Protein backbone atom coordinates (compact mmCIF):
# COMPACT_ATOMS: atom_id res chain seq x y z
CA UNK A 1 0.00 0.00 0.00
CA UNK A 2 3.04 2.23 -0.04
CA UNK A 3 2.14 3.46 -3.53
CA UNK A 4 -1.17 4.73 -2.15
CA UNK A 5 0.24 6.69 0.78
CA UNK A 6 3.10 8.30 -1.11
CA UNK A 7 0.94 9.13 -4.13
CA UNK A 8 2.82 11.92 -5.94
CA UNK A 9 6.27 10.42 -5.34
CA UNK A 10 5.81 7.11 -7.12
CA UNK A 11 6.63 6.83 -10.81
CA UNK A 12 4.19 4.01 -11.52
CA UNK A 13 1.20 6.07 -10.36
CA UNK A 14 1.83 8.59 -13.14
CA UNK A 15 2.34 5.80 -15.63
CA UNK A 16 -1.00 4.24 -14.70
CA UNK A 17 -2.84 7.55 -15.05
CA UNK A 18 -1.27 8.19 -18.44
CA UNK A 19 -2.08 4.63 -19.47
CA UNK A 20 -5.73 5.23 -18.63
CA UNK A 21 -5.74 8.48 -20.62
CA UNK A 22 -4.11 6.65 -23.55
CA UNK A 23 -6.72 3.88 -23.47
CA UNK A 24 -9.50 6.48 -23.39
CA UNK A 25 -7.97 8.20 -26.41
CA UNK A 26 -7.70 4.91 -28.32
CA UNK A 27 -11.33 4.14 -27.50
CA UNK A 28 -12.46 7.54 -28.82
CA UNK A 29 -10.42 7.15 -32.00
CA UNK A 30 -11.84 3.69 -32.72
CA UNK A 31 -15.47 4.18 -31.79
CA UNK A 32 -16.42 7.81 -32.42
CA UNK A 33 -17.93 8.84 -35.72
CA UNK A 34 -17.82 12.57 -35.14
CA UNK A 35 -14.56 13.95 -36.57
CA UNK A 36 -14.13 16.41 -33.69
CA UNK A 37 -14.62 13.56 -31.21
CA UNK A 38 -11.77 11.64 -32.86
CA UNK A 39 -9.60 14.76 -32.58
CA UNK A 40 -10.34 14.90 -28.86
CA UNK A 41 -9.11 11.31 -28.60
CA UNK A 42 -5.87 12.31 -30.31
CA UNK A 43 -5.43 15.17 -27.84
CA UNK A 44 -5.89 12.76 -24.91
CA UNK A 45 -3.22 10.46 -26.34
CA UNK A 46 -0.78 13.37 -26.74
CA UNK A 47 -1.42 14.40 -23.13
CA UNK A 48 -0.71 10.86 -21.95
CA UNK A 49 2.61 10.92 -23.81
CA UNK A 50 3.44 14.28 -22.21
CA UNK A 51 2.79 12.96 -18.70
CA UNK A 52 5.07 9.99 -19.40
CA UNK A 53 7.91 12.20 -20.62
CA UNK A 54 7.79 14.51 -17.61
CA UNK A 55 7.42 11.60 -15.15
CA UNK A 56 10.39 9.73 -16.54
CA UNK A 57 12.39 12.96 -16.58
CA UNK A 58 11.71 13.49 -12.88
CA UNK A 59 12.16 9.94 -11.66
CA UNK A 60 14.77 8.87 -14.18
CA UNK A 61 18.42 8.34 -13.57
CA UNK A 62 20.06 11.16 -11.65
CA UNK A 63 23.59 10.50 -12.88
CA UNK A 64 23.02 11.72 -16.43
CA UNK A 65 23.66 15.41 -16.25
CA UNK A 66 20.69 17.69 -16.84
CA UNK A 67 18.54 14.70 -17.65
CA UNK A 68 15.62 16.00 -15.63
CA UNK A 69 14.98 18.87 -18.06
CA UNK A 70 15.18 17.05 -21.40
CA UNK A 71 11.87 15.31 -20.82
CA UNK A 72 10.16 18.60 -20.01
CA UNK A 73 11.49 20.10 -23.25
CA UNK A 74 10.16 17.12 -25.19
CA UNK A 75 6.76 17.72 -23.63
CA UNK A 76 6.93 21.37 -24.67
CA UNK A 77 7.55 20.26 -28.26
CA UNK A 78 4.64 17.79 -28.03
CA UNK A 79 2.35 20.63 -26.91
CA UNK A 80 3.49 22.85 -29.79
CA UNK A 81 2.97 20.06 -32.32
CA UNK A 82 -0.47 19.35 -30.84
CA UNK A 83 -1.41 22.99 -31.38
CA UNK A 84 -0.30 22.88 -35.04
CA UNK A 85 -2.10 19.57 -35.55
CA UNK A 86 -5.31 20.88 -33.99
CA UNK A 87 -5.30 23.99 -36.18
CA UNK A 88 -4.91 22.03 -39.43
CA UNK A 89 -7.30 19.25 -38.44
CA UNK A 90 -10.07 21.64 -37.40
CA UNK A 91 -9.62 23.55 -40.66
CA UNK A 92 -10.08 20.21 -42.44
CA UNK A 93 -13.23 19.55 -40.40
CA UNK A 94 -14.68 22.91 -41.43
CA UNK A 95 -13.77 22.27 -45.08
CA UNK A 96 -15.47 18.85 -44.96
CA UNK A 97 -18.54 20.43 -43.37
CA UNK A 98 -18.73 23.04 -46.13
CA UNK A 99 -18.81 20.40 -48.86
CA UNK A 100 -20.71 17.54 -47.19
CA UNK A 101 -22.92 19.35 -44.63
CA UNK A 102 -21.92 16.80 -42.00
CA UNK A 103 -18.81 15.73 -40.09
CA UNK A 104 -19.91 12.15 -39.39
CA UNK A 105 -17.01 10.26 -40.88
CA UNK A 106 -19.06 7.24 -41.99
CA UNK A 107 -21.06 9.51 -44.30
CA UNK A 108 -18.07 11.32 -45.74
CA UNK A 109 -17.00 8.69 -48.24
CA UNK A 110 -16.22 10.57 -51.43
CA UNK A 111 -13.26 12.75 -52.25
CA UNK A 112 -15.21 15.28 -54.33
CA UNK A 113 -18.81 16.37 -54.52
Amino acid at each position, binding site marked *: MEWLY*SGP*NVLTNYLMISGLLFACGIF*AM*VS*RRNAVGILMGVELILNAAGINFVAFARFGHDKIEGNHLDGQIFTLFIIILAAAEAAVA*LALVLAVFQTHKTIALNEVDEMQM
Partner: protein
Amino acid sequence: MAISSFVFWLTALMTVSSSLVVVGARNILHAAFALCTAFLGVGALYVFLHADFVAAVQLIVYVGGILVLIMFAIMFSSNVAEDTSAERRGWFSMWTGVAVALVVFIGILLLVRRLEVPLHEQNKYAAVDYANTVGVAPSTVSGDELALVKKHPDIVGAVSTLSDESAKAEMIKRSANPEDGLKLYDAWHQSKGHYGIGHKLVGEYILPFEVVSVLLLAALLGAVVIVRKELN
Protein backbone atom coordinates in the same frame (compact mmCIF):
# COMPACT_ATOMS: atom_id res chain seq x y z
CA MET B 1 -2.79 9.75 4.54
CA ALA B 2 -0.66 12.80 3.86
CA ILE B 3 -2.50 15.79 2.42
CA SER B 4 -0.37 15.84 -0.76
CA SER B 5 -1.25 12.22 -1.43
CA PHE B 6 -4.93 12.97 -0.95
CA VAL B 7 -4.81 15.91 -3.38
CA PHE B 8 -2.84 13.81 -5.85
CA TRP B 9 -5.42 11.03 -5.92
CA LEU B 10 -8.21 13.59 -6.17
CA THR B 11 -6.47 15.11 -9.21
CA ALA B 12 -5.96 11.68 -10.73
CA LEU B 13 -9.64 10.85 -10.23
CA MET B 14 -10.66 14.16 -11.82
CA THR B 15 -8.40 13.60 -14.84
CA VAL B 16 -9.38 10.00 -15.51
CA SER B 17 -13.12 10.42 -14.91
CA SER B 18 -13.37 13.52 -17.10
CA SER B 19 -11.44 11.78 -19.87
CA LEU B 20 -13.98 8.95 -19.62
CA VAL B 21 -16.70 11.58 -20.10
CA VAL B 22 -14.77 12.93 -23.12
CA VAL B 23 -14.91 9.58 -24.86
CA GLY B 24 -18.35 8.55 -23.63
CA ALA B 25 -20.56 11.64 -23.87
CA ARG B 26 -23.25 11.56 -26.53
CA ASN B 27 -23.33 15.32 -26.96
CA ILE B 28 -20.03 16.46 -28.42
CA LEU B 29 -20.19 19.80 -26.59
CA HIS B 30 -20.35 18.00 -23.24
CA ALA B 31 -17.25 16.09 -24.30
CA ALA B 32 -15.49 19.38 -25.05
CA PHE B 33 -16.26 20.75 -21.58
CA ALA B 34 -15.02 17.51 -19.99
CA LEU B 35 -11.87 17.84 -22.09
CA CYS B 36 -11.25 21.18 -20.36
CA THR B 37 -11.28 19.44 -16.96
CA ALA B 38 -9.01 16.69 -18.25
CA PHE B 39 -6.47 19.26 -19.50
CA LEU B 40 -6.59 21.06 -16.13
CA GLY B 41 -5.99 17.74 -14.34
CA VAL B 42 -2.98 16.95 -16.53
CA GLY B 43 -1.63 20.44 -15.77
CA ALA B 44 -1.99 19.72 -12.05
CA LEU B 45 -0.07 16.46 -12.54
CA TYR B 46 2.74 18.48 -14.16
CA VAL B 47 2.81 20.64 -11.03
CA PHE B 48 3.08 17.50 -8.92
CA LEU B 49 6.04 16.49 -11.08
CA HIS B 50 7.75 19.85 -10.35
CA ALA B 51 7.43 20.88 -14.02
CA ASP B 52 5.91 24.31 -13.37
CA PHE B 53 6.79 25.77 -16.74
CA VAL B 54 5.25 22.85 -18.63
CA ALA B 55 2.13 23.21 -16.49
CA ALA B 56 1.85 26.89 -17.42
CA VAL B 57 2.32 26.10 -21.11
CA GLN B 58 -0.29 23.34 -20.81
CA LEU B 59 -2.82 25.85 -19.45
CA ILE B 60 -2.02 28.53 -22.04
CA VAL B 61 -1.85 26.35 -25.14
CA TYR B 62 -4.31 23.56 -24.41
CA VAL B 63 -7.00 25.24 -22.35
CA GLY B 64 -6.56 28.70 -23.87
CA GLY B 65 -5.89 27.69 -27.46
CA ILE B 66 -6.73 24.18 -28.58
CA LEU B 67 -9.91 23.91 -26.52
CA VAL B 68 -11.23 27.20 -27.91
CA LEU B 69 -10.45 25.98 -31.44
CA ILE B 70 -12.34 22.74 -30.75
CA MET B 71 -15.34 24.68 -29.41
CA PHE B 72 -15.33 26.85 -32.54
CA ALA B 73 -15.22 23.80 -34.79
CA ILE B 74 -18.10 22.17 -32.91
CA MET B 75 -20.28 25.26 -33.03
CA PHE B 76 -19.57 25.88 -36.70
CA SER B 77 -19.98 22.35 -37.88
CA SER B 78 -22.80 20.62 -36.07
CA ASN B 79 -26.15 21.15 -34.49
CA VAL B 80 -25.21 20.89 -30.84
CA ALA B 81 -28.75 20.78 -29.47
CA GLU B 82 -29.37 17.28 -30.79
CA ASP B 83 -26.99 14.57 -31.83
CA THR B 84 -27.77 13.25 -35.26
CA SER B 85 -28.05 9.52 -35.66
CA ALA B 86 -25.17 9.47 -38.14
CA GLU B 87 -22.78 10.78 -35.52
CA ARG B 88 -23.90 8.33 -32.83
CA ARG B 89 -21.72 5.28 -32.71
CA GLY B 90 -23.10 1.84 -33.44
CA TRP B 91 -22.88 -1.20 -31.18
CA PHE B 92 -20.20 -2.79 -33.32
CA SER B 93 -17.81 0.14 -33.24
CA MET B 94 -18.52 0.65 -29.55
CA TRP B 95 -17.49 -2.89 -28.60
CA THR B 96 -14.55 -2.87 -31.00
CA GLY B 97 -13.37 0.32 -29.28
CA VAL B 98 -13.78 -1.22 -25.83
CA ALA B 99 -11.84 -4.32 -26.88
CA VAL B 100 -8.96 -2.39 -28.46
CA ALA B 101 -8.71 0.03 -25.53
CA LEU B 102 -8.72 -2.86 -23.04
CA VAL B 103 -5.98 -4.71 -24.90
CA VAL B 104 -3.85 -1.55 -25.05
CA PHE B 105 -4.40 -0.79 -21.36
CA ILE B 106 -3.60 -4.33 -20.25
CA GLY B 107 -0.42 -4.16 -22.31
CA ILE B 108 0.58 -0.92 -20.56
CA LEU B 109 -0.30 -2.46 -17.19
CA LEU B 110 1.98 -5.45 -17.80
CA LEU B 111 4.82 -3.20 -18.94
CA VAL B 112 4.48 -0.91 -15.90
CA ARG B 113 4.43 -3.87 -13.52
CA ARG B 114 7.71 -5.09 -15.00
CA LEU B 115 9.31 -1.73 -14.30
CA GLU B 116 11.03 -2.15 -10.97
CA VAL B 117 12.22 1.18 -9.64
CA PRO B 118 12.74 1.10 -5.88
CA LEU B 119 10.38 3.53 -4.20
CA HIS B 120 13.03 5.17 -2.03
CA GLU B 121 15.82 5.48 -4.56
CA GLN B 122 13.97 6.75 -7.60
CA ASN B 123 15.53 10.18 -7.43
CA LYS B 124 17.23 12.47 -4.99
CA TYR B 125 14.44 15.05 -5.22
CA ALA B 126 11.74 12.43 -4.92
CA ALA B 127 13.56 10.92 -1.96
CA VAL B 128 13.40 14.24 -0.12
CA ASP B 129 9.71 14.66 -0.91
CA TYR B 130 9.14 11.11 0.20
CA ALA B 131 10.95 11.70 3.47
CA ASN B 132 8.94 14.84 4.12
CA THR B 133 5.70 13.08 3.28
CA VAL B 134 6.00 9.95 5.37
CA GLY B 135 8.02 11.49 8.20
CA VAL B 136 11.35 9.72 7.68
CA ALA B 137 14.33 11.88 8.64
CA PRO B 138 15.02 14.10 5.59
CA SER B 139 18.39 13.85 3.88
CA THR B 140 20.57 16.83 3.08
CA VAL B 141 19.14 17.95 -0.27
CA SER B 142 16.72 20.75 -1.23
CA GLY B 143 16.64 23.29 1.64
CA ASP B 144 20.37 23.28 2.33
CA GLU B 145 21.26 23.49 -1.34
CA LEU B 146 18.88 26.34 -2.03
CA ALA B 147 20.41 28.25 0.89
CA LEU B 148 23.89 27.61 -0.50
CA VAL B 149 22.93 29.00 -3.91
CA LYS B 150 21.34 32.08 -2.35
CA LYS B 151 24.52 32.72 -0.33
CA HIS B 152 26.60 33.29 -3.50
CA PRO B 153 24.55 35.56 -5.78
CA ASP B 154 27.65 37.11 -7.40
CA ILE B 155 29.12 33.79 -8.59
CA VAL B 156 25.75 32.38 -9.69
CA GLY B 157 24.97 35.58 -11.60
CA ALA B 158 28.36 35.50 -13.32
CA VAL B 159 27.94 31.96 -14.67
CA SER B 160 24.29 32.24 -15.65
CA THR B 161 24.97 32.48 -19.40
CA LEU B 162 27.59 29.73 -19.55
CA SER B 163 27.17 26.10 -20.47
CA ASP B 164 27.20 23.53 -17.68
CA GLU B 165 30.83 22.54 -18.13
CA SER B 166 32.23 26.07 -18.22
CA ALA B 167 29.97 27.08 -15.33
CA LYS B 168 31.50 24.28 -13.30
CA ALA B 169 35.04 25.44 -14.11
CA GLU B 170 34.15 29.06 -13.41
CA MET B 171 32.60 28.23 -10.04
CA ILE B 172 35.64 26.24 -8.98
CA LYS B 173 37.86 29.14 -10.06
CA ARG B 174 35.86 31.80 -8.21
CA SER B 175 35.34 29.87 -4.97
CA ALA B 176 37.78 29.85 -2.08
CA ASN B 177 38.67 26.20 -2.65
CA PRO B 178 37.70 23.54 -5.21
CA GLU B 179 35.43 21.56 -2.86
CA ASP B 180 33.27 24.60 -2.18
CA GLY B 181 33.07 25.31 -5.90
CA LEU B 182 31.93 21.77 -6.69
CA LYS B 183 29.36 21.85 -3.89
CA LEU B 184 28.00 25.14 -5.14
CA TYR B 185 27.88 23.81 -8.70
CA ASP B 186 25.88 20.75 -7.63
CA ALA B 187 23.46 22.89 -5.65
CA TRP B 188 23.09 25.41 -8.48
CA HIS B 189 22.57 22.72 -11.07
CA GLN B 190 19.73 21.20 -9.11
CA SER B 191 17.97 24.44 -8.27
CA LYS B 192 17.82 26.09 -11.67
CA GLY B 193 14.55 24.70 -13.10
CA HIS B 194 13.08 27.26 -15.50
CA TYR B 195 16.45 28.74 -16.17
CA GLY B 196 17.64 25.35 -17.36
CA ILE B 197 14.70 24.96 -19.74
CA GLY B 198 15.34 28.33 -21.40
CA HIS B 199 19.05 27.64 -21.57
CA LYS B 200 18.56 24.26 -23.22
CA LEU B 201 15.85 25.53 -25.57
CA VAL B 202 18.08 28.13 -27.20
CA GLY B 203 21.28 26.13 -26.75
CA GLU B 204 21.21 22.40 -27.18
CA TYR B 205 17.75 22.33 -28.79
CA ILE B 206 18.08 25.39 -31.01
CA LEU B 207 17.58 23.44 -34.27
CA PRO B 208 14.30 21.72 -33.25
CA PHE B 209 13.16 25.05 -31.81
CA GLU B 210 13.64 26.83 -35.15
CA VAL B 211 12.18 23.92 -37.14
CA VAL B 212 9.09 24.01 -34.92
CA SER B 213 8.66 27.73 -35.56
CA VAL B 214 8.72 27.11 -39.32
CA LEU B 215 6.27 24.23 -38.86
CA LEU B 216 3.87 26.48 -36.94
CA LEU B 217 3.98 29.00 -39.78
CA ALA B 218 3.31 26.24 -42.31
CA ALA B 219 0.40 24.90 -40.24
CA LEU B 220 -1.08 28.39 -39.97
CA LEU B 221 -0.86 28.98 -43.74
CA GLY B 222 -2.18 25.47 -44.42
CA ALA B 223 -5.20 26.04 -42.20
CA VAL B 224 -6.00 29.32 -43.97
CA VAL B 225 -5.64 27.74 -47.43
CA ILE B 226 -7.85 24.79 -46.50
CA VAL B 227 -10.80 26.79 -45.15
CA ARG B 228 -10.78 29.69 -47.62
CA LYS B 229 -13.71 29.86 -50.00
CA GLU B 230 -12.94 29.36 -53.67
CA LEU B 231 -13.48 32.51 -55.74
CA ASN B 232 -14.09 31.74 -59.38
